């Protein structure tokens, strides 16, 4: 299992996503799926970093583990204000540019990328559980680490 706990700040986003990236690669998860998972993870973490703690600071923890042979679980845990992403509406994806609302896409991406999503509030913690059905790498090529891309 991978567990990483850091201050809930965007400055730590790369450390979270890099750690999860390397954990997934160690299980031969495909590059395409890693990109999908990174997207869902970033969107969930950004929500915590921007909104969970409001005027104060706090931590966010990411846990990754395989629950069986072909499914793994990523949990995002914080002790901020209660926030259930599962209750948010899907944005209007057909609205034109003028009518399209800015925001709301992050949760939509989490829903689309994860196989299932669950939210629990327990002992003062928000626990967002994202389950993914693993897609193994079929030898389509090496994954490019994000820190090699100039970011």
């Amino acid at each position, binding site marked *: 299992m991978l567990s990483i706990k850091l201050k809930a700040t*965007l*400055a730590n*986003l*790369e450390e979270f*996503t890099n750690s999860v990236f390397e954990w997934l690669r160690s299980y031969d998860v495909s590059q*395409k799926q890693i*990109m*999908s998972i*990174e*997207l869902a993870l*970033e*969107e969930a973490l*950004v929500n915590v970093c921007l909104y969970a703690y409001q005027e104060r600071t706090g931590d966010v923890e990411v846990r990754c583990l395989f629950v069986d042979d072909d499914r793994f679980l990523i949990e995002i845990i914080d002790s901020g204000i209660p926030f259930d992403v599962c209750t948010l509406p899907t944005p209007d*994806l*057909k*609205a*034109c*540019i*003028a009518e*399209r609302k*800015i*925001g709301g*896409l*992050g949760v*939509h*991406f989490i829903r*689309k990328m994860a196989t299932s999503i669950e939210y629990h509030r327990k002992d003062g913690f928000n626990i967002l559980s994202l389950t993914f059905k693993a897609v193994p790498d079929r030898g389509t090529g090496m994954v*490019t680490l*994000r820190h090699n*891309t*100039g*970011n």
Partner: protein
Amino acid sequence: MELMVRKEENAVIVSVIGWMDAVAAPQFDKRLETLMEEGETRIIIDFKDLEYISSAGLQTILAAAKKMEEVNGEIVLLHLKDAVKEVFEISGFDMIFRVFDDQDAALA
């Protein structure tokens, strides 16, 4: 993330290179804002060398496109591919922006 800006006769092409997450998106936002303040009304965003984009990057593009519409300008997308293309499709952005695979066609 790196940004390269090239001015053509009737448009400016912004090439986005690398990885655009919520940390990098404000830099992109600032660049687009500057170009609009300079009077550019046709911006082509070239994604050929972009590997990843999240909602923060899309929100930046949408906000800029809204401002562009107010001055009858336009943001055009070029070379969507792989994971980036998928994100645009999932968000429906590929339907509300003009998307090109060919630079000459985008510039026409």
